[in-house]
């Protein structure tokens, strides 16, 4: 358990500005394409 927590803390400290920049860029791009596109899938029909 202690090792797991240590591993988690270590992973968290490795997150830097670049990682956050990547995540923000991906989130922005995902919102953009989801908002710009209008495809229709089988699951959406008649739901």
């Amino acid at each position, binding site marked *: 358990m202690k090792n797991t927590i240590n591993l988690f803390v270590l992973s968290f400290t490795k997150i830097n500005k670049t990682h956050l920049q990547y995540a923000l*860029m991906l989130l922005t*791009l995902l919102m*953009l394409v*989801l908002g*710009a*596109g*209008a495809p*229709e899938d*089988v699951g*959406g029909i008649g739901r």
Partner: protein
Amino acid sequence: MILLTAVAAGTVAGWGFARWRGIAWQPPIFRATWLVALGFIPQFVAFYSPYTRTALTDELASTSLICSQLMLLFFTFLNLRLPGMPILMLGLGCNLAVILANGGFMPLTIDAASRLVNQAILDSLVIGERISSASKDILLPETRIVLPWLADRFVSPQNMPYRFAFSLGDVFVAAGAFWMLVGERPALSVLNSGDN
């Protein structure tokens, strides 16, 4: 799914291409990212959130879609210098044009719908109505669609496990997003000068 696949494929390809060239992968840096968040909220409320989409009338959902896409169109204009963004903007413009021309929703042709679902489900749909509260589409016969070549009329191949209908605009949006992640970007110093 076609759109999410384009983003995922573009990320992997962009990262792989940069690695192959021995350089660090630089993600695109957007101007006015807040505008995307602001523009996406109306669509999230009207189509994506199961808690709110059933509460909205069709008129309100349609208005949300149009307002949202106008804001996103302005965002693409502000970021036109990024590779792929002109293609994405063209796709968004195509989708917005056909949505505006057909009463505020994306038309789905009966032919495309019949290739996606069985006859029983097709019979339960009403022509001229939205096909579900989660959908941006209305079902229309091709003869009643204004700008029919921009409608959701293309269907993914039958041998694909995931079936969907899509428009020409969706193809441009997906291609633009992919290219944005793979293509060469202007130097960071130039981009940073105009960042928000």
